[in-house]
């Protein structure tokens, strides 16, 4: 029998979060973000947290909600260009920010979940990112040493999931979610559709349930689009 990760809802799923903790949050822009968990973190009012997330949401949605309440002490991200409040808090020194290359961010999370303490990458050599980091040549090319990332909680969002914690993502909403699921001490998965055990084809599961500690059926997904670009329908 599968080990059940099912919890009743977002309140139970977020039990144990505390001030000063480090959180990982999946998503790229507003695509594939754990909307329910973010709202719960706002409601709980946890403070001085470090958030590892590719982006920082927009002013009134996604991680922007936590920034509004000054709940975040430090952000570790690759791109934060869509959020005025973020920029204001960073330039005023209220918010500590560690900007790192996107591929290094993804691999640092993957490494954290895979038990690899550090790795060498060419990304960022010769730039600010390399300051204070070990440099080593491989095949005549310089690389910098990047360390793994882990977190107290990882909050991820999937399209479908089952009681065993197995997850399937939809389209580009997958992004950072699978690596962050691996790297959380407690990984909370919210899913659009919780399906009975045995429904998901084992051949087609993206994140095995072993990486997930709590799963729940999310609700009221807003799924905002940041840049709505379309072709006209005529002809």
């Amino acid at each position, binding site marked *: 029998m599968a080990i059940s990760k099912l919890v009743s809802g977002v309140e139970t799923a977020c039990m144990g979060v505390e001030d000063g903790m480090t959180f990982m949050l999946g998503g790229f822009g507003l695509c594939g973000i754990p909307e329910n968990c973010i709202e719960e973190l706002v409601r709980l009012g946890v403070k001085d947290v470090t958030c590892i997330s590719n982006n920082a949401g927009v002013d009134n949605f996604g991680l922007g909600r936590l920034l509004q309440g000054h709940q975040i002490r430090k952000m570790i991200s690759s791109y934060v260009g869509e959020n005025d409040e973020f920029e204001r808090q960073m330039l005023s020194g209220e918010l500590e920010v560690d900007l790192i290359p*996107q591929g290094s961010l993804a691999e640092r999370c993957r490494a954290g979940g895979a038990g690899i303490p550090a790795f060498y990458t060419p990304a960022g050599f010769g730039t600010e990112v390399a300051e204070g980091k070990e440099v080593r040549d491989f095949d005549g090319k310089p690389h910098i040493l990047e360390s793994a990332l882990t977190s107290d909680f990882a909050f991820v969002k999937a399209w479908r999931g089952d009681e065993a914690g197995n997850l399937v993502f939809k389209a580009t909403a997958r992004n950072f979610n699978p690596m962050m699921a691996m790297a959380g001490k407690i990984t909370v998965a919210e899913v659009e559709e919780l399906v009975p055990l045995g429904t998901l084809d084992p051949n087609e599961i993206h994140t095995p349930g072993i990486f997930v500690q709590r799963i729940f059926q999310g609700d009221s997904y807003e799924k905002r689009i940041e840049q709505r670009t*379309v072709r006209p*329908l005529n002809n």
Partner: protein
Amino acid sequence: MLDKNGIATRIAQEVQDGQYVNLGIGIPTLVANHIPNGMNVEFQSENGILGMGPFPFEGSEDADLINAGKQTITALPGAVYFDSATSFAMIRGRHVQLTVLGAMEVSSTGDIANWKIPGKMVKGMGGAMDLVASADNIVVAMMHTNRAGESKLLPQCSLPLTGVACVKRVVTNLAVIDIKDGAFHLVERAPGVSVEDIKSATAGKLIIPDSVPEMNL
């Protein structure tokens, strides 16, 4: 002088049949509109898609299907979705053959700066540092000068770097310029633009051959 679509048209000529290509935000995105019919090219977007198609028809946009510029897109037959670690394995592992991206400054030694203006603009590097550190073939798409009319092709970059000694070709509104041996080399000029115009808009050392053909657009 070219407009943004003109720059994209010229860069589309750099794309070869059978290539996997990553297009950055801005002018580079427009390159996809100028690939000749019948050419087999797959566009990768680093947020997790290979086989990216055009924008969706009005009414069929999907919040779960976007490109790295957060724009709604479509997936072509044969497309595939993947996570961010796999995406950057494709980039870092040199499986993506051509990268086209924008820049604020490029130096005559191939350095590029495009992610930060200290004290003013702090958006982050996104995937640009990974892309420029690994791609074999990097083409920069940009205007030759900034809004203040100052050259963006410099002896050395003044802004924080995105990558060092990585850019090999720059296509601007004025010219196609190659970078080698610590200098800019004029390759082609845009329609109606003189060598003198290009020379005065280029702050870094510019090598001018005896004959500089006009771009064939």
